[in-house]
């Protein structure tokens, strides 16, 4: 006798669907560990991350000789790499997350409006995006950070603004495509309000694409911040971010590879986890695709 699937609580559903995709699961676990250590790590390790020790400089990694704190080696003035990476993770994640979130929200909202309103409004919004886009984001950031101080707030502001057009244009493009589809046309014919069409029919179709881009943008923002550090106008020491650590470690590439390697690895792992998560989310959020994970669950059961 066939089992009748009962609606399960959301969390359980998410858990089940996550279990079906081991890659995404790894990504989520990594991100959770990262978030926890970014929140609590700095409290215990602030001192180890900022106290120079010239006698113990450039200590090689993967050795317990200098205590567990220095397991990942020490930097050019003898500070623990592990402690610095954890302390830097807070700034890095804050900057990236807030920038991407702000850019996505504004970009998506403007994109929906642009795709679903009068040509005049649409044009106005698109030309606004053109202004930002016609100037490479990194250079815009350089100019703005040059004028204002390169503080974390300003960095977030400028990175967010420069990322808005991506979401805006993608959203609009998707809207243009989706609104011609049968089910949207049907809703229009049946007299659904604009608001309802956008929120109920269009937004859900747009979100998966946006999230794919957002996760990659998370990486982009981390890397843009890193490039700004390379050019010397990002976050200024003694503040630290992963990007700044990579930039500072670059001259030591030959003598002490770990200075640039660990923070670089942190960036790569974070980006990859987010991406695996986004692949999973794309499937999980798409009603047409979800069966893939559900089948996975059933066969696992």
């Amino acid at each position, binding site marked *: 006798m066939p089992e009748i699937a009962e609606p399960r609580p959301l969390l359980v559903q998410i858990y089940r669907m996550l279990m079906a995709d081991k890659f995404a699961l790894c990504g989520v676990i990594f991100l959770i560990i990262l978030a926890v250590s970014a929140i609590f790590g700095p409290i215990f390790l602030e001192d180890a991350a900022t106290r120079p020790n010239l006698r113990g400089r450039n200590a090689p990694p993967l050795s317990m000789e200098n205590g567990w704190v220095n397991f990942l080696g020490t930097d050019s003035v003898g500070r623990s790499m592990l402690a610095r990476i954890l302390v830097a993770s807070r700034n890095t994640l804050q900057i990236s997350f807030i920038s991407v979130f702000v850019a996505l929200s504004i970009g998506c909202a403007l994109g929906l409006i642009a795709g679903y309103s009068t040509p005049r409004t649409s044009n106005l919004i698109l030309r606004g995006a053109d202004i930002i886009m016609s100037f490479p984001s990194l250079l815009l950031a350089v100019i703005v950070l040059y004028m204002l101080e390169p503080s974390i707030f300003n960095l977030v502001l400028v990175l967010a603004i420069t990322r808005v057009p991506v979401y805006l244009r993608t959203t609009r493009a998707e809207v243009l495509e989706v609104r011609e589809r049968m089910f949207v046309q049907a809703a229009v014919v049946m007299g659904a309000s604009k608001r309802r069409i956008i929120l109920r029919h269009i937004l859900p179709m747009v979100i998966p694409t946006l999230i794919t881009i957002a996760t990659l943008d998370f990486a982009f923002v981390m890397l843009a911040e890193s490039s700004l550090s390379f050019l010397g106008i990002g976050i200024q020491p003694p503040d630290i971010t992963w990007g700044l650590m990579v930039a*500072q470690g670059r001259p030591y590439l030959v003598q002490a590879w770990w200075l640039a390697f660990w923070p670089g690895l942190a960036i790569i792992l974070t980006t990859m986890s987010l991406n695996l998560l986004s692949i999973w989310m794309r499937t999980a959020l798409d009603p047409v695709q979800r069966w893939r994970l559900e089948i996975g669950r059933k066969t696992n059961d």
Partner: protein
Amino acid sequence: MRNLNSCLIGAALVTMTAMPVMAQDRNVTIVLGEEVDVVDPCMSSRSNVGRVILHNVSETLTELGDQGDGLMPRLATAWEPVDEDTWRFTLRPDVQFSDGTAFDAEDVIYSIERTNSDQIVCDNSAKYFGGLEVSMEAIDDLTVEITTSPAQPILPLLLSGVTVVPTGTDASAFITEPVGTGPYIFSEWNIGQNIILTRNDNYWGETPEVESATYVFRSDAAVAAAMVETGEADIVPSMSVLDATNPATDFSYPNSETFFLRIDTDVAPLNDRRVREALNLAIDREAFQGTILAEGVIPATQIVPPSTLGWNPDLQVWPYDPERARALLEEARADGVDVDTEINLIGRSNNFPNVTEVMEVMLAMIQDAGFNASLRMYDVSEWEDFYSKPFAGDRGPQLVAAQHDNAKGDPVFTMFFKYHSEGLQGAVWDDRLDSLIDQATAATGDEREALWREAFRVVGEEIITDIPMFHMVGFARVSARINFQPTIATNSELQLAQITFN
């Protein structure tokens, strides 16, 4: 559009070109850290311009020897003071510019006038003629008299930085094809890519070994260093200590820069001498040597190198004594000095390799001695706002980190700017020091030396206006196929004539 063509052709005709062959030929390639974007001889005191132009294309009347042999003749064969404010220079006969015209006294006058022209802004004018009224007279073809107001006792030294161009050189704009008397001719400038000099066969002096030199620009020091390693280039005159990993090709040389922190003596608690002394005692200078700074840096007692006239040998390097520093701080606190005000260390990003690390370590040392201090790194133009007057009225107590370059052998280039009340970068206001500097500037001979020596004592011991750190070193990488000894002068020039082949 020439570049568009060359760029497209370069991509299209790829098969015709091959990797540069470096062996037997007598050409050298030199990698500069910053693009040379002007080539006017009157900009030769800018170090990247000087490394191409100075003494290669354009020459000067006098030349400062780099091995301690003082001022040597170049385009002038002799010079003597006529009276208090006038100097007479005898010029070298039978010298030709690379365009074929003969060199004479009119050219010298024209060159100095052009340098000081109000149509163009020349670094050489700002650097050597600031505040000087100059009048000149050609006595005959090969004799020129130069009068300055006020009197300038070291005029011949100043002229070691002033390049000579032929009469008639455009004085309303920077020239792009400099003509000079030097051993090399400026033959090609592919903007952004390279500059090529070729040997001048009509040169008045000895014929050098190098036939032609190509200058390329790489802002990344690691890439520049790699180019010598792979044989793509022969000399990197300036690179980071971090890349100086091969003792066979990498040479350190004193680069005439002195690293120091200027103390703002006007703002509490830095207006208390004990606090300034405590700052100096808090720094463990030895800890930097051979760790984040090169082994060869020399702890400094004053901000000019020992080869400078009037350098005071009696000043001692501050010992590392955090105990005493703490005691001095407590003493000041007991007298009501507000020693808990946060002191700001102001650093300049990319001032020299590792500057950030150095500043971070200094911050930790100062904090260890009981100071409340913080650090901010600024890019050069923002940093300038802190370094040069006018200072902000409500500034807190500041320690501004800077490098000072004085390779000229006379502290007049230093003292007024850094220590006179009216000096652009002075953060000390002391009448006695002002009059000492004024007297010394006008004095000559032993008196001049004694006055400078006294001024350095006042600055370093009596008032304590700085935290002197190190006389710095630079690193050059020189390919094994050539002989070139970098010296203190390599910071501002690179004489191709000094290069020989192995």
